[in-house]
C-alpha cells in the first residue's frame, strides 16, 4: 500500500541547507522554463537564489492560475462547533491546558449559526472541532453535518485524524472535503510541540489525508503550519505530500493551504517566523509545482496582504471568519482558535474580488449524498 512516510524517510539524510545554498539564479531560470517540475526543481524554487527571480515566478504563477482556474475565487467560512480538546499543542489556543471557556454548540445553536452564515450568501462551509476521544464525538459531528446540510452545498471538516470507516461515515452524511494539516513535517519538532494527547502520533496524522482519499472525499486539503519550523523543508514536504496524493488518487482534488502562525497561548511565538516575502515565495513555488492544485488563503492574513496575494495563485479564500465557538450568534464568544487578521465581512470580500476582476464563487458542487 505504501505511505508518504516512505518519501519523507528517503530525505532523512538530505542536506537541505547545502542544496538550497548552492542553487544559482540560472538554475531557477531553467526550472521556470519547464512545464513539469521534479521535486528538486520545486526545492530549487524555495531557495534564496529564487528570490532574485520572484517577479518571473509571480508572472508565471499568475498565468497558470488564470489559465486553469479562470477569473474566479471560491469563498467559504469556518464554523467552530466545539473547543474541548485533549491535545497539548503548544501553539494552539484550544490547548487542553489553556484557561478558556469551553463550549460545544447544541443542535439549536448549530442551526442558528448555519442560518447566520447562510444569510451572508456563503454556501461552502468548513466544520471544526477540538479533539475529543470516543464514539460520541463522531456521532455529534455527523449530526452537525446533517443539520448544516440544508443550508450549504459543500461541507468540509477540519477535525482530528480518523480511520477510513469513520471518514466514510462522514462522507455518506454529506461531507465532501477533508482539511488536515500536518502542522510540522519535521519529526523532532513535531514531537516537541505535541507533548501529550493523541496528536503525539505523527504517523497517524501523516497518513490521515491518504485515508481521506481512500474514503472517497471529493477534495483533500493539506498544509504545514508555517512558522513552527524552518520553512523551506516544510514547504517542500507539503508540496511533495500533495503531489504524492494527487498521483496516487487521481480522482481526489488535492489542495494546499499556507496557514502562517503568528502567536499562541502563553506568549508562544513562532520559532521560525515566515516573512511576507517568504510566504509569497512559498505560494509561487507551490503553484509552479502543482499548476492545477487549489490553494487556500485564510483570514489569518491581513486584508491588504490578502489582496496582494490574490493574483499569485490563490483559488479559495475564507471570508467573514470567526474562530470562536458560537462566534456568529453570540457576541460574548471571543476566545477564538487564532486571531483573525482580515476582519472584512463576506460582502466586503466579495466587493474587493469584483473590483479586482474576479468572480466570487459561492457554490461549486451539488451534494449528491
Amino acid at each position, binding site marked *: 500500500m505504501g505511505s508518504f512516510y516512505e518519501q519523507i524517510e528517503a530525505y532523512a539524510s538530505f542536506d537541505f541547507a547545502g542544496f538550497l545554498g548552492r542553487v544559482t539564479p540560472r538554475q531557477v531560470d531553467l526550472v521556470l522554463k519547464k512545464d513539469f517540475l521534479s521535486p528538486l526543481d520545486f526545492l530549487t524554487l524555495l531557495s534564496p537564489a529564487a528570490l532574485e527571480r520572484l517577479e518571473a515566478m509571480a508572472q508565471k504563477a499568475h498565468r497558470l492560475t488564470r*489559465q486553469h482556474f479562470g477569473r474566479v475565487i471560491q469563498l467559504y467560512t469556518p464554523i467552530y462547533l466545539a473547543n474541548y480538546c485533549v491535545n497539548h499543542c503548544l501553539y494552539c489556543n484550544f490547548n487542553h491546558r489553556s484557561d478558556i471557556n469551553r463550549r460545544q454548540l447544541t443542535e439549536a445553536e448549530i442551526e442558528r449559526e448555519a442560518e447566520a452564515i447562510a444569510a451572508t450568501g456563503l454556501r461552502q462551509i468548513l466544520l471544526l472541532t477540538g479533539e475529543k476521544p470516543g464514539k460520541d464525538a463522531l456521532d455529534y459531528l455527523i449530526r452537525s453535518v446533517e443539520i448544516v446540510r440544508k443550508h450549504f452545498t459543500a461541507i468540509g471538516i477540519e477535525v482530528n485524524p480518523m480511520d477510513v470507516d469513520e471518514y466514510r461515515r462522514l462522507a455518506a452524511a454529506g461531507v465532501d472535503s477533508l482539511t488536515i494539516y500536518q502542522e510540522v513535517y519535521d519529526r523532532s519538532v513535531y514531537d516537541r510541540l505535541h507533548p501529550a494527547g493523541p496528536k503525539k502520533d505523527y504517523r497517524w496524522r501523516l497518513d490521515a489525508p491518504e485515508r481521506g482519499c481512500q474514503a472517497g472525499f471529493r477534495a483533500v486539503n493539506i498544509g504545514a503550519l508555517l512558522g513552527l519550523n524552518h520553512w523551506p523543508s516544510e514547504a517542500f514536504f507539503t508540496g511533495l505530500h500533495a503531489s504524492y496524493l*494527487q498521483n496516487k488518487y487521481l480522482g481526489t482534488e488535492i489542495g494546499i493551504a499556507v496557514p502562517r502562525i503568528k502567536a499562541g497561548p502563553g506568549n508562544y511565538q513562532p520559532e521560525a517566523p515566515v516573512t511576507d516575502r517568504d510566504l509569497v515565495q512559498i505560494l509561487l513555488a507551490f503553484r509552479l509545482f502543482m499548476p492545477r492544485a487549489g490553494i487556500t488563503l485564510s483570514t489569518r492574513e491581513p486584508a491588504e496582504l490578502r489582496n496582494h496575494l490574490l493574483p499569485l495563485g490563490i483559488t479559495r479564500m475564507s471570508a467573514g471568519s470567526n474562530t470562536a465557538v458560537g462566534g456568529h450568534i453570540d457576541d460574548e464568544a471571543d476566545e477564538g482558535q487564532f486571531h483573525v487578521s482580515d476582519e472584512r465581512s463576506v460582502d466586503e470580500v466579495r466587493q474587493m474580488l469584483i473590483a479586482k476582476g*474576479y468572480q466570487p464563487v459561492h457554490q461549486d458542487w451539488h451534494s449528491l449524498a
Partner: protein
Amino acid sequence: MDRLVIGGRELKNRLFIGSGKFADERVIRDIVAQTGVEVVTVALRRVSLSGDGENILHCIPKECVLLPNTSGARTAEEAIRIARLARAAGCGNWVKIEVISDNKYLLPDNNETIKATGVLAEEGFVVLPYMHPDLYAAKELERAGAAAVMPLGAPIGTNRGLKTKEIVRILIEECSVPVIVDAGIGKPSEAAEAMEMGAAACLVNTAIATAGDPLVMARAFSQAVAAGRLAYLAQPGERTEYARASSPLTGFLGS
C-alpha cells in the same frame, strides 16, 4: 444550405462557448449579442437550484440553447444524477456529459461517458459527450444515442491547440453525428483549422474567458469558426509539394 441541426434545433453559429472562468458572467450576454453565439455550456455544479443569490442562468439569454454540463462528475452514475437534477431544475433537455476522475490532467473517462450517454439518451436527453478522441469510443457513443461527439483538441484549459488533429480528422470522416471540437483550442486560427477539416462546431471557454478582452476574443473566435466552415465548404485546392507552373515545361508534348 449549410445547416447544423442538433436535437432538432438548427444552429447558425458554430461557436459554442463555456461560462466557468469569466470574471463577470454578464459578459456572456454581450458576447451573445455581438456574435450570435447560440449554445452556452454551464457547469450545473455552480448553479444554485434553490433560486437564491446570483445565478449564472440569468446571464444566459433566452434565445440561447442552455447546455448544462456534468463537470465534477467522477462516474457515470454521478453524471446521470447531475443531468437529471439539471432537467428537473428547468435547464432543458440538452446535456454535455463530462466524466473526469483525473484531477491532474482532467482527461475524460470514455468508458464512464459511454455508460452515462446510453442511460441519458434513453431518457430523452440530447446528449453531447465530451470525450478523449478515440474511434471505437466515438462509435460506441453514436450507438448509445449521442447527438454529437465532442473530442478534445488538447487537455482542457491548456490552450495548446489542435494536438489531436489526426484522430479528430478520422472521427470527422467516420462519425455520422456532428463532431464538435471541445477543449484545448487556444487561438482563433486553431478553431479555424478544426473547422477547415470539417468539424461541425468548436466549443471554447478558457481562451475567451481568460483573454485580455473576452468580448473581442469571442468575436475573433466566432469569425474564425465561420471562416473555417466556409473554407471547408469551398473545398480548398489540393496542396502540392512542388510549384504548379501555369506554363508547364512539358506542355509542348501535347496530350
